[in-house]
């Protein structure tokens, strides 16, 4: 049923730390690997070693530059489904394929019902849905529903594959509906933001903004540039003598 369920208290989602993400692509690769064997499998690649590869991924890591001059910085930006509270991708679906789970808020696709009309991918502002050209159905991030509730998986690993793989701890998983949860506390402490709130989808996932660049006044007093090894004045000493000899 593509009408949205009454909002439940539990809102499982991800929090992504743009300050610590180093853009290593481990989350994207781990996502591809897990989901290529999970409930949404396969995630086909066309012409993978050719000149125009075309692949289905649920998680893609972009790179941006923010700001200008010395305060500009590069930001690595992983993009995946935000499991919105009011997902337009669900309500536009004509077949009942797309749905939002009342019990934990995860947005899923029932591939057995999908007609491949692609309207959900038009409705999603975040590009979270990708089309499987081989099986003619739409696929998307499942928040690793086949891991997080999977009793065959070691208890510590019952988290999404992308979170499990992140080497810098830039990805966090938990219940954003519980203000006391560690992940919600983190969002409150670091001023986590919603992406494109103006579109009204109420995304659940949050992004932690990069911390200010450490430079200039009030920081560790690092010089802006290396000082010359040889002091300009006075013009004497061993290093100056070597310099004079080598300059002849």
């Amino acid at each position, binding site marked *: *049923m*593509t*009408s*949205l369920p009454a909002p439940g208290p539990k809102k499982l989602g991800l929090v992504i730390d*743009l300050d610590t993400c180093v853009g290593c692509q481990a989350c994207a690769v781990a996502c591809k690997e897990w989901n290529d064997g999970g409930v949404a499998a396969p995630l086909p690649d066309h012409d993978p070693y050719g000149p*125009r*590869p*075309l692949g289905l*991924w649920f998680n*893609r890591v*972009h*790179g*941006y*530059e*923010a*700001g*200008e001059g010395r*305060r*500009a910085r*590069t*930001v690595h930006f992983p*993009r995946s489904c935000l499991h919105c509270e009011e997902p*337009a991708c*669900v*309500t*536009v*679906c*004509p*077949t*009942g*394929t797309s749905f939002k789970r009342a019990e934990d808020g995860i947005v899923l696709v029932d591939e057995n*019902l*999908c*007609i*491949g*009309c*692609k309207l959900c*991918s*038009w*409705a*999603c*502002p*975040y*590009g979270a849905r*990708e*089309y*499987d050209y081989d099986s*003619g*159905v*739409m696929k998307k991030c499942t928040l690793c529903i086949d891991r997080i509730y999977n009793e065959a998986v070691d208890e510590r690993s019952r988290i999404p594959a992308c979170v499990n793989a992140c080497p810098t701890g830039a990805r966090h998983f938990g219940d954003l509906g519980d203000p006391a949860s560690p992940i919600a506390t983190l969002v409150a402490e670091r001023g986590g*933001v*919603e*992406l*494109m*709130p*103006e*579109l009204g*989808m109420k995304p659940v996932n949050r*992004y932690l*903004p990069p911390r200010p660049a450490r430079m200039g006044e009030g920081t560790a007093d690092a010089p802006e540039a290396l000082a010359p090894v040889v002091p300009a004045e006075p013009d004497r000493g061993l290093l100056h003598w070597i310099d004079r000899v080598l300059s002849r």
Partner: protein
Amino acid sequence: MHPALSVILFTVSSGAGFGMLALLGLAAAVQPQEAPAGAVIAEFAIAFALTSFGLLSSTFHLGRPERAWRAFSQWRSSWLSREGVLAVASYPAALALALALLGLLPPQWIRPAGVATALLSAATLISTGMIYASLKAIPRWSNPWTTPGYLALGLMSGASMLHAFSRIYDAMSGVEPAGAASGWLTLALLLPALAIKLGYWWSIDHAAPRATIESATGLAGRGPVRQFEAPHTADNYVMKEMGYRIARKHAKKLRRIALALGFALPALLVSGSVLTPGAVGAASLSLLAAAAMLTGLLIERWLFFAEARHVVTLYYGAAAV
């Protein structure tokens, strides 16, 4: 947005077909009387052919067309589903109307069947518009001009088709043109349709952006944000489907061509067909008018897709959408 040929054919063809049915229903509701069998059969056959061709071609872009019947199930939330339900519900109403006009059903059926046909067909046109108008992620579609546009263009092209085939029927049956009502109706429907289309184009050219790369990345307040590197070296589905772009100069030219073929030329030809005394001349002019109009609408519909930009392009380097 990628302009899929099947969707362009579908919206133009079924738009004209449901426009015809809406006007036939309205005419029967206003003036409930039996009509010459040949005319009724021709008009309804053409309308059904246009709507059915449209509905069939809309299934060509589906990944799993054999499951298309499932699309009737989610009318509570989805405009696409509502469109399907209303389109299919128009068929029995229009069939009952045609049979009543032919005298095969009691004449008191004409008015209710006409009202039902008109309402269901107009509602189908409106729900087609709402599919696009409800997509907030595509700001150039989700504006107040989109849905009136689909209704007005459908009625306009439906009137032009009706005019053409009533003139052809007159010419073939050898009767003198009975009246120019369908021609005047076409001209009367052409003006609001033109105004709405011009308003739509003005609106998408002047609308303030709905989202920016800063709001899309959550990096607002740090100065301008630029794409530094893409996540992949070749296109992906999102870029192919949502990232379609068209050069502005071509858009301007195509808009002029759409205006000339879709509105100006049909207005001249329909006026000519109303004023021409001969039945054969009137029939050829009105047929040319309908052909030019449908061609113009195909270009207009192509532009509707190609000029629409999706906010997901913000993640791929667009600054504001």
